[in-house]
């Protein structure tokens, strides 16, 4: 289990290491005195979509931190007060507004965050919470990390296979696409249930089943992107410069597919979480009494008449996390200028 934390930390450090190409000196430094008007201007002004990145990033961080600090907090929310989620959300909003003001130095003149800074925030929050969890040995984030890693694996497999199929074409492409067609012919949830049924319940099994089923979708998407990218002039120019197919795929095709990949990753994360929760609800994934929302809903099912909030609150929590990932994905897609075709 420790290995998963380490993997997540390493992955989160990559943006930090890769990104220092524009120095901070280029950002415009503004030091205006604090005023409500300034806050309103900064938080509510267009392009407002950019604030979604910060909002979702900070919320995610907050969610992870809250989850880490107290394992029983989700249970507390579920079993005690209605007001707690509201307070939670309120706290998040304050953090967002405050950060937009406190870090106004890193907002560029057109309202966007300086790219490096944004990535640093994201990386720092992921690293920070992972370290915290590593130390406190709280399993809550374990599941999200596992899901995340599973998703990333599926995407990477899909990327490699889809890129090769799209670029090389020919019989390799044809064979692969037939395999994809076959897997896609089955409803994917059913396939996952089938696979887990065969292997037995448990988080690892569910995530593995997820990877095995999902890669085909990603392979298809990437293959399509690669085919349209192949028609670009700079690929021809690279061929004329003498670059081999592998080199072209590595240096020209994949880096240009990455922004859509990142966006897709964040959006698919929501789907993956829902899938895992569904599996747990069906009793096939994580087993009770480990605090996983799907499992909690399963437990709450028996009390739906007397204490409906036992089902409602975990559901709301799932919804919240999925919405956050969706917001993050949408704002990332705006930031990268990616058009959503999936």
């Amino acid at each position, binding site marked *: 289990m420790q290995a998963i934390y380490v993997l997540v930390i390493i992955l989160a450090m990559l943006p930090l290491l890769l990104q220092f190409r524009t120095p901070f000196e280029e950002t415009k430094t503004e030091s205006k005195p604090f005023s409500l008007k300034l806050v309103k201007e900064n938080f509510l002004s267009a392009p407002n979509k950019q604030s979604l990145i910060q909002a979702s990033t900070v919320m995610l961080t907050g969610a992870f931190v809250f989850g880490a600090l107290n394992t029983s907090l989700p249970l507390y929310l579920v079993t005690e007060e209605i007001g707690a989620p509201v307070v939670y959300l309120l706290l998040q909003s304050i953090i967002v507004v405050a950060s937009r003001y406190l870090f106004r130095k890193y907002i560029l003149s057109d309202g966007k965050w300086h790219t490096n800074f944004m990535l640093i925030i994201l990386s720092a929050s992921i690293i920070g919470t992972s370290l915290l969890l590593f130390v406190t040995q709280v399993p809550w984030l374990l599941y999200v990390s596992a899901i995340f890693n599973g998703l990333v694996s599926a995407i990477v497999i899909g990327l490699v296979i889809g890129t090769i199929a799209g670029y090389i074409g020919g019989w390799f492409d044809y064979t692969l696409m037939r395999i994809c067609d076959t897997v896609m012919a089955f409803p994917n949830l059913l396939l996952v249930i089938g696979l887990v049924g065969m292997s037995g319940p448990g988080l690892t099994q569910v995530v593995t089943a997820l990877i095995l089923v999902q890669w085909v979708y990603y392979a298809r998407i990437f293959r399509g992107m690669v085919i349209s990218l192949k028609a670009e*002039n*700079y690929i*021809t*120019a*690279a061929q*004329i*410069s003498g670059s081999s197919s592998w*080199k072209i795929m590595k*240096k020209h095709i994949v880096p*240009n597919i990455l922004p859509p990949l990142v966006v897709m990753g964040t959006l698919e994360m929501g789907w993956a979480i829902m899938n895992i929760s569904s599996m747990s609800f069906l009793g096939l994934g994580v087993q009770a009494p480990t605090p996983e929302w799907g499992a909690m809903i399963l437990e709450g099912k028996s009390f739906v008449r007397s204490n409906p909030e036992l089902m409602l609150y975990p559901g709301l929590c799932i919804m919240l996390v999925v919405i956050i990932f969706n917001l993050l994905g949408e704002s990332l897609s705006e930031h990268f200028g990616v058009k959503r075709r999936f």
Partner: protein
Amino acid sequence: MSLLDVKQISHTYKTNSMFKPHHERTVLNNISFSIDEGSCFAILGSSGAGKSTIGKIILGIEKPTQGSVQFMGHDLYTIDKKLKHQLRRDLQVVFQDSYSSVNPRMTAEQIIAEPLKNYEKLSATEQKRSIIELLEHVGLSKNDLMKYPHEFSGGQLQRINIARALSLKPKLIVLDEPVSSLDMVNQTLILELLNNLKKELGLTYFFITHDIKAAHMLADQLGILEKGQLVEVFNNPSEFFTSVHPVVHQLRSAILAEHPSSRTIRSNKRP
């Protein structure tokens, strides 16, 4: 022996569609010409006449339906991969659209380094020095090394494309409408640059264009391409202005006036 020998090239596109009958479109018909080392052969033609196709065929990336292309004595489409890779370094290209010819995620340095990395084994400092030399040769500076394509104008980016084409010191450069998407001022500047480079480095050009003025600036030989056929080849470009061939006549009359006093669409009298 000439550097490039094009023999009876014909090229046809077939459409393989399940729903429509098989349709053939002849893009090039029996084209033959040759280019000597150090000279510039310009092909003049209107859009759709097949100019880009002939460029791709000469570059060795599209096999013609019929005919052969002899580059430095070798038939480009029958030699083995290894030899082709060796010949590749002497056959480079500059495309029309400067922005789509470069990977938007690579810096100018990386763009120009790519051919060098493929063929030469230079140390990092040697490579950087070569790249800076090339940049200065095309009129840019070493401050442009770390910039990305979107930070350059169309004209500057085209200079980077030229620098990349020059990096391996090729024998033949195919110029596929290199200045057509630039504005007038940049067009002249880039054409002058190409002319100077040709004289200085003894380059050979295959210059594809639809602009007679641009062709006139660089060409030693001028070929007229109309509907896939090479209707005329002038070994002296100024013969273009005296030829009685109907296609040439039409092209001549389509040239716009250089001064309002010689204009024909509107009155050329002073008010």
